[in-house]
């Protein structure tokens, strides 16, 4: 459904997107994951026909982003970053406008507007000014305008940024409900987001693809090693030494504990199962220190990047 082939976008001296290639199958939900400024928005703007690439090609639903930009935009629903909308329009009027611009008229337009308002939970705010809505509602209006013409492809730029946890769950459920019918490309810089919503993940850093894999496989790859946070009521130096000596622990890093109070440290281990945690707990108890906390730390996006970029450096990308 989406084919991106050696896409490059140059802004002056900076290369925002550098020879990026990936594809998305029909009905798939794919996540573009990367830190801010990694080129996600640029890729999306190219795919929506906003501007053409410097070189390379991309097609959406078989339509070239440069040559068939107009026909291509008919097929796409796009939610720009931070859901830019007209603040002085009312929700229903705005959605009707979107339908009309998409050449949906009369009864069909009314039906579609009613449908997306229901799907996106906007029925109660139909007559409110968009500018007066909360961020979560505005995001939903943005999603509704992208869905009003039943697009084949939905492109969402950071759909959950700035929302509270409940709103995030709602938006994710909305997107998940489209699975199989609509091809969805969404961008995010939040790691758990992709694992919960996306079938596949493309990870970008500074305009390059760092990894492309299914969310599950990526999870396995990432959890190849683990960090464990341990907080112990005991002398920090001896705690460090003792934990460091536990089989399976590769390295120990002291977080605090220079003075009084419990020592807090991070143990790095190669395996991800609970065996190391069990062993650490046993050692601490053996020494008669008070064990306050033992828990695995999930890998942050930064860690993931460091890991993947390093991987990239040593082995050729798959």
């Amino acid at each position, binding site marked *: 459904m989406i084919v991106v082939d050696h896409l490059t976008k*140059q*802004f*002056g001296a900076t290369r925002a997107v550098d020879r990026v290639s990936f594809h998305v199958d029909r009905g798939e939900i794919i996540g573009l994951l990367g830190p801010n400024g990694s080129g996600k928005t640029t890729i999306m*703007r190219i795919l*929506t*026909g*906003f*501007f*053409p690439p*410097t070189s390379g090609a991309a097609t959406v639903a078989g339509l070239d982003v440069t040559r068939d930009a*107009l*026909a291509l*935009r*008919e097929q*796409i629903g*796009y939610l*720009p*970053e*931070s859901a*830019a*909308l*007209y*603040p*002085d*329009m009312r929700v229903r009027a705005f959605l009707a*406008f*979107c339908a*009309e*611009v*998409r*050449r949906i*008229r009369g009864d069909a337009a009314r039906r579609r507007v009613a449908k997306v308002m229901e799907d996106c939970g906007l029925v109660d705010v139909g007559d409110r000014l968009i500018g007066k809505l909360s961020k979560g509602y505005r995001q939903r209006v943005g999603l509704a*305008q992208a869905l009003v013409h039943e697009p084949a492809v939905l492109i969402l730029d950071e759909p959950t940024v700035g929302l509270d946890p409940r709103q995030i769950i709602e938006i994710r459920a909305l997107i998940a409900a489209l699975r199989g019918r609509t091809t969805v490309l969404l961008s995010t810089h939040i790691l758990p987001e992709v694992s919960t919503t996306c079938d596949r993940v493309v990870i970008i850093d500074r305009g390059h693809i760092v990894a492309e894999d299914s969310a599950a496989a990526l999870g396995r790859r990432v959890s190849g090693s683990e960090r464990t946070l341990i907080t112990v009521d005991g002398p920090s130096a001896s705690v460090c030494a003792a934990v460091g000596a536990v089989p399976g622990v590769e390295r120990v890093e002291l977080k605090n504990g220079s003075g009084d109070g419990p020592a807090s440290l991070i143990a790095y281990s190669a395996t991800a199962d609970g065996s190391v945690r069990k062993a650490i707990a046993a050692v601490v108890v053996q020494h008669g220190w008070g064990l306050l906390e033992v828990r695995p730390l999930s890998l942050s996006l930064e860690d993931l990047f460091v890991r993947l970029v390093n991987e990239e450096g040593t082995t050729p990308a798959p």
Partner: protein
Amino acid sequence: MSFLALFRKELRSYFVSPLFYVVAAVFFCLCGFFFYTRLIFFVEYGFGINILGNFWLAFLAGAPYSISMVLLLVMPLLTMRLFAEEKKLGTIELLLTYPLRDRTIVGAKYAACAAVLLVLLLGTLGYAVYLNALQPLPWTPLVSGFLGLLFLGLSFIACGLFISALTENQVVAAIGTLGILLLFWVLTWNEAATGPQAMRVLAQVSMFDHFETFVRGVIDVRDVLYFVFFISFFNFLTLRALESRTWRGR
């Protein structure tokens, strides 16, 4: 179809914003002030000579002049938001990723502002209608003058739309437009500073000189062509400015 949708949206956004009402109020107040003072002036000093025969010359000819000046001041305020606001809000990205041609977008914005201009100009006709009730007026020269005003206003919009497409700051758009329009306006005002050769060229470019012919009750093809060219030229620039997103930064 999509043009109409866009046109309606643009027009709507004028009439829901307080800016339009403030601008309209200022416009009508100033035009009314000029109307009143000119009328008083005529009544005070026009006696003795053939009042009604002189009426056109002394009073009506002046009306489009004063309206044109007020128009010059208020039009940049009506054009400044057209693209600058969309850029500021980020909605331009929405608009440019809808299946709309750039020229549809520019056309709809232009037409909406032109409709607002029409409302303002028709409003000023109220003064003439009022006078007409007291004493029938010679309407034909007045029509010519208002045609001149219409061309003038449409040119202001074309220029303002272009400047608005260059910036996301509405104040910058308004000031920039006012500056350019004022320059086109006063180009031939100082004859001492320009040689006769340069003056001939400047008179061709100057907006005021072309407008003046209309006010005198003469509709000259050359003047019409001047305004048509001015409007097309700036609309062309607007389209290029909008298109610049496709080649800028290569």
